[in-house]
């Protein structure tokens, strides 16, 4: 078996297409996205439990389409999320006078999502200004009719108190790299396995192997092992380039790296199953690319490789949440940026493993040796 692994590994490293697909492409994407930084316009604002939600200010925030208010989290949870950059800001409108405008509004943003935090702030400032102006208008009307004292009108103005807390800076690379890593694993697993097994079968290399005492299981295991080693080495290179060239966040350093590699290995094993199915189904070499693309392309686009899946309409998200790469990408990001342990992402791992079981049942059914 090790002889096959060694031979296969040599063969892979000498085949230019394997290197390009599993290393070149993802790196190009990382470089491209590492330099351009995209913006998503959805703002997630956590609402403090004590926040007064009856005010007109709150009602007008509700009406802004880009802002999503999160109301079901405790203050501690929100803070945690703010640090991780999952929530862009926390809003706290002090309950006070019944007056619609006279409130102290607190907004906490974090460095984790500075751009969006300041965006939220400017939206809010804008709203408060408008409200204050309209308050002045009613005030001046009142003054005309009643000439009331001017002493406490200032208390009725809404004030914005803004503060910023420390957070991890969530860069574009932190989103893009795990996605590319996941995609690299997917394409290497599917394309690599499908092509190699098909051509080994076609050129009778496998048949020649059968004439030797080695068992079929070991032929597959040997091949799989070599791909695993090659791809993990590729993953390592991608992560290290990401870290040292583009400042990719490895939150717990070495542990995170190992956890990412473990996840990569799991993903690769599952995706190789797809490759076996494809190589078994394909009647000729030209059928492999379309078949393999059927597996990879939808996942490429829908699994949060380039854009987060929450940007999609809900019906599409349902599809996204069925794909194994979605979970792999998600798990990789959680591990890399949020420092989640493998236990914390057991849900993702379970879904990927479930896919593995399904795929390998299909692979056993369709796999052909000759």
């Amino acid at each position, binding site marked *: 078996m*090790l002889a096959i692994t*060694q031979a296969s590994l040599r*063969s892979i490293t000498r085949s230019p297409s394997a290197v390009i697909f599993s290393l070149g492409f993802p790196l190009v994407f990382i470089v491209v996205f590492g330099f351009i930084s995209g913006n998503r316009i959805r703002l997630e604002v956590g609402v403090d439990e004590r926040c007064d939600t009856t005010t007109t200010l709150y009602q007008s925030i509700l009406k802004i389409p880009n802002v999503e208010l999160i109301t079901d989290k405790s203050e501690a949870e929100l803070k945690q999320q703010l640090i991780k950059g999952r929530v862009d800001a926390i809003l706290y409108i002090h309950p006070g006078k019944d007056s619609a405008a006279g409130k102290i509004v607190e907004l906490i943003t974090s460095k984790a999502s500075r751009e969006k935090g300041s965006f939220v702030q400017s939206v809010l400032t804008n709203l408060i200004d408008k409200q204050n102006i309209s308050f002045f208008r009613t005030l001046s009307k009142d003054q005309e009719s009643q000439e009331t004292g001017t002493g406490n009108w200032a208390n009725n103005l809404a004030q914005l108190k803004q503060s910023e807390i420390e957070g991890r800076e969530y860069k574009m690379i932190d989103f893009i790299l795990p996605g590319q890593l996941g995609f690299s694993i997917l394409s290497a697993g599917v394309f690599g396995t499908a092509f190699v097994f098909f051509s080994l079968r*076609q050129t*009778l*290399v496998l*048949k020649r*192997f059968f*004439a*030797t005492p080695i068992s079929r299981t070991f032929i597959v295991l040997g091949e799989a092992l070599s791909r695993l080693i090659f791809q993990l080495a590729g993953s390592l290179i991608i992560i290290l380039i990401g870290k040292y060239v583009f400042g990719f966040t490895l939150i717990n350093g070495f542990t995170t790296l190992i956890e990412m590699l473990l996840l990569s290995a799991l993903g690769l094993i599952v995706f190789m199953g797809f490759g076996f199915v494809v190589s078994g189904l394909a009647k000729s070499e030209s059928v492999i690319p379309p078949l393999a693309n059927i597996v990879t392309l939808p996942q490429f686009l829908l699994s949060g490789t380039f854009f987060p899946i929450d940007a999609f309409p809900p019906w599409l998200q349902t599809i996204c949440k069925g794909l194994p790469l979605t979970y792999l990408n998600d798990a990789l990001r959680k591990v890399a940026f949020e420092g989640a342990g493998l236990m914390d992402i057991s849900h993702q791992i379970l879904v990927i493993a479930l896919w593995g079981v399904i795929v390998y049942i299909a692979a056993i059914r369709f796999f052909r040796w000759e």
Partner: protein
Amino acid sequence: MGCISSILHPRLNIIRRSSQDNLQHRYFPYVLHTQAIIEVKDLVKHYGDLHAVQGISFTVFEGEIFGLLGPNGAGKTTTLEIIETLRDKTSGEVWVDGLSVDIDPGEIKKRIGVQLQSAGYYPSLTLTELLRLFSGLYNVPVIPEDMLKLVGLEDRSKAKYKELSGGQKQRFSICTTLINRPRVVFLDEPTTGLDPQARRNLWDLIRQVREKGTTVVLTTHYMDEAESLCDRVAIVEKGKNHRTGYSREPY
């Protein structure tokens, strides 16, 4: 017709084997070749409606070059692959070195060397690396350079299989069959497509293999090859063998 019972071997060559079971040869150098190494009886193979092999029987004796002669599509390759345990048979009996293909295919694989008609080898590996791979597959340590020297390819050790000429490819294929020091090697149309010179060279190589005590079973559709290279020949046509006998007997 069945097989002609063995009489004196035409070559009367001295067999230099040292293993215990062949001890008798040392005492009787001009021995009768009575020891059967392969026995095929009423072999039948159907592929659906296609009756590729319809009752072939023959015996191969130790130390000879045995040929299966017949036109394309006669069932030679199928017969060979059944003996090599690469294919299941429909009915009949096949014994290799005293082992039945039904019971001991794994053990048989350890004792035979197989050259397929158009086998490919692992892409982008050099000959040396390929030999190391096969050495691992058979779990037999070999020195690749020595193996290559055996077939006269020592100066191509860094070449890749697909860079070899037709004759060299066949020599290399034979080289991989010798790694496990097999009792029998099977060569499926080893000289097809080679130029006359390369063909002669390959014949010499095959004879060398036999000189070292390995039995050779090959298929061919060339009459002259059967005549000058093989000691005995079975003529196969349309899935049946008409005759088995010494290649220099008049047909």
